[in-house]
Structure formats: C-alpha cells, structure tokens
C-alpha cells in the first residue's frame, strides 16, 4: 500500500517545477564558494577540503533547511487546496502510509539535493583546478547530510501539516537553520535537527570526526517523534477542506 501511495505522490509531482529549485539554487553557493576559494587561496590551502567548506558554509545553514521546507510545504499544499483533504483522508489507505509516502519522497529529495551539491562540488573543483585526489569521504558527507536532511524534513512536514499556509513553515525553516547554527556553535549540535544537517555535511569542518551513533540516534529520534506527532494530528483532528 505504501508503494501505491508513493506512486500517487510521484504522480502529483508530475510536471511540477518544484524540483527546479533544487537544481538551480545550489548553483549559487557553488559559484560563490568556488569564487571565495579562489580569492583566498593563501588562507585555504587544503585543496578539496577547503573547497567543500566554502561550498557548504552557507548552504547547509540558511539554504537547505528553507529549501527542504519549501518542498514539504509544497507537498501539503496539494492537500490543503482544492478540497483535497476529503479525498486524501477518505482513501482506503492507512494514514501512516499516506504520510510515509510523503516522508519518503522528501527523503529522496533530500538525497537528490545532496547529490546535486556533490556533482557541483566535483565540477567546480575540476574547473578551479584543484589538485590531488577527490576526498574519499565525499559520499559519507553527502549521505550523512541527507540523513540530517530527513530529520529536518520530518519536522518541516509536521509544521506544514499543522500550519495551513505556505510561507510561515518556510520562514520557520530559515529560523531553524539559524538556530541550528547557534546550537552547533554551542556544541549542542547533536541535539537539534537543523544542526544535524550541517553536522552531517561537515560544513566548515570537513575533517571533523562525526560521532555516528549519537548522530544517527538523534536523526532517528527526531524523525520518529515528528512522524508520530503528524500521525497523531492526522488521526485526531478533523480536517476541514478549504
């Protein structure tokens, strides 16, 4: 049933230009990060690692949380508009599958955006003439980043479900990203979903050792808690269609 829901979600995405944002927007940080890297070559002497820190410096804190927020808000917007709540909740499918499909799709988008960032990273590295082998940790950075992204998606999906408007949850994503920056600076990064994203990507500190266990546990905990909250909301609240 989950698979069918996923198929339905994919169909809803057909012809929607929402994916474009995930392809086009990471180009800005890539260009600027590379420019910044080339401009400060004497200070940044660590080749690929320095380039990665420049690429992810801003994107993981301000950019990706808000962007994932747009995707999650967009997913619920489909149901908030055109009386779709009625057909959504009366479909002969458990709500956990309906919600699961949305979460899986968001996770896929989180992974895709990381892939996009990775490809742009490699491309700009080649163009900038960075010597040395490509860091072998790159797939790990991207995967951990995507995992952090999933917990952000779970939080954002919950807020977009409760707040029936497009803009506020997205703004909330940006606020979360900024708060994540502060939590990371204080050393409480593992305890905050939006920090998990930049911790996972090792933004700023490419060579940082990530404590995989607390990281994965925290990401899992946030995903599970917010999924349960959303399911509880879906089960118990009367959803009046607009």
């Amino acid at each position: 049933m989950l698979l069918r829901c996923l198929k339905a979600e994919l169909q809803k995405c057909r012809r929607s230009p929402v994916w474009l944002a995930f392809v086009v927007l990471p180009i800005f940080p890539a260009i600027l990060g590379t420019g910044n890297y080339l401009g400060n070559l004497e200070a940044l002497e660590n080749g690929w690692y320095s380039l990665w820190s420049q690429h992810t410096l801003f994107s993981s804190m301000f950019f990706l949380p808000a962007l994932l927020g747009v995707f999650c808000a967009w997913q619920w917007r489909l149901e908030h508009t055109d009386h779709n709540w009625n057909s959504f909740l009366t479909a002969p499918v458990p709500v956990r599958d309906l919600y699961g499909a949305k979460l899986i799709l968001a996770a896929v988008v989180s992974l895709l955006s990381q892939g996009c960032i990775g490809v742009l990273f490699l491309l700009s590295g080649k163009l900038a003439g960075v010597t040395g082998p490509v860091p072998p940790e790159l797939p790990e950075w991207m995967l951990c980043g995507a995992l952090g992204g999933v917990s952000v998606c779970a939080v954002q999906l919950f807020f977009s479900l409760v707040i029936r408007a497009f803009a506020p949850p997205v703004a909330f994503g940006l606020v979360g990203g900024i708060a994540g920056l502060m939590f990371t600076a204080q050393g409480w990064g593992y305890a905050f979903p939006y920090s998990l994203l930049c911790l996972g990507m090792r933004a700023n500190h490419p060579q940082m050792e990530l404590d995989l266990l607390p990281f994965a546990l925290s990401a899992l905990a946030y995903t599970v808690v917010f999924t349960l909250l959303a399911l509880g909301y879906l089960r118990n609240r009367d959803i009046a269609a607009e």
Partner: protein
Amino acid sequence: MNLLRLEFYKCRRRKIVLVCAAVLAVELIWIGAFFTRQDAEDMKWGWMLLLYNLSTVDAIVLPLSVATLASRNCELEHKGGTWKLLETMVTPVQLYDAKLAWGALVLAVLLIVRSGLFLAVGIAEGFSGPLPLARFGLFTLLSWTVSMMVYALQQGLSLRFANQAAALVCGIAGSFLGILSMLFPPALVRCVPWGYYGLMSLVFMDWNPVTRVTRFYWRWPPVTDVVLLLLWAAVFLIVGRTLFVRKEV
C-alpha cells in the same frame, strides 16, 4: 483608503503580528548571542558594532521575512478566488496599490519597533558615546526603503503565481544572496537587489591585514547607490504592476 482598511481587515486572523514578532525575536537573539561573545575591546565600538551587525542580520533575515509577509497578504486572494469579484469593483491598479501600501505600513511599524528595541538594548548594555538617534532614524529609513524594494518584487511574484513556492524560493535565494553579496566585488553587489541591505549600511569595517586590527567607521551611503536602489524599486514596481494588471482573472 477604504481599500487599505480592507487589506488590514482581511489579514486580521492571519497572524501577521506573530510573523513580525518572530522576525524581531530572531534578530534579537542573534544580536544578543553575538554580543555575549565579544570581549571588552570589541565592545568599545558599541553603537557602531550594533548597527554594523544589524545590517548583516537584515540581509539574511529580512528578504525571506518580506517574502513571507507579501505572500501572506496575496495568498488569501488566490485561496479565496476573489479576483473576479474584486476586479468588478475596483481596478487592478487600485488593488495593487492598496496591497503595496499595506506592506509599506506593516514594514514601517516592524522596522520602527525593531529600531526602538535595539536602541533600548544599546542603552541597557551601556554603550559608550552619545545616543546616535539620527543615525538610527536614517538606518530605519534605509532598511525600510530596501525592504520596500524587495516587497515590490515579492508582491509581484506572489500575485502573479498562485503557487507561493515561486515567491518563497525567490525569497530564500534573496536571503542567501543577501549574505553572500557581502563577499562579492563591489560592482557586482549593485546588481543584486538583496545586496543593498549591506550596501546601505551606515557603518563599515576596515580590517588591517598587517596589524590585524579591526576598525569601524561611520559613512553616508553614496548618492549613486541610493539612486540605483530607487531605480531597482521602480523597475520591480512597474513590472510587477503591469504583469498584475494584464493578468486574466
């Protein structure tokens, strides 16, 4: 005037105050967190440091906040399908102007409250030197002007596309370019509308790479930059309004 009053009436349950309060809270927490980490040496710059950081925080926070406010005010017409009804009574131009005036008033109140808040913070922190009231006033006016330019862009987008994702993605890109434009070469900053938050700053920083000493100084925004800012605003206004007026409802 009636139309403007109606705009406020339409937004009465849309938690606009909450959005504004969130903006203020984020700025306050950010600046607060920043000041707690400064040593006494940096704190002697007091007011200058505050205004310098405020324009940086503005460049990150305000583009998306302005996008959110514009989207809140325009989304309701798409949702309610009210265009046909409205445009049988008033012209699209009047409607557009009323919405813009609503944004101008909300942003003005938000920014004035913001300035008052930070003046109070400065006094409470006991910053040295005389109270730079005139500069705070000018700073408020400048950030309002930049915000209105961004608002005109966002309102155009929010009215044009029923799907608010377009406007919000533009807002995110704005927040992002706003902060990154501070690293751009100066000529390029002027081509980025959101870069004007930093460009209009009344305080500039001078970092001496040899002595590693940071120095802040007051300055007036150059007239050319102000003219360019107004030009950007005029372009967004005219294009947005024309697109809206010509839109089939």
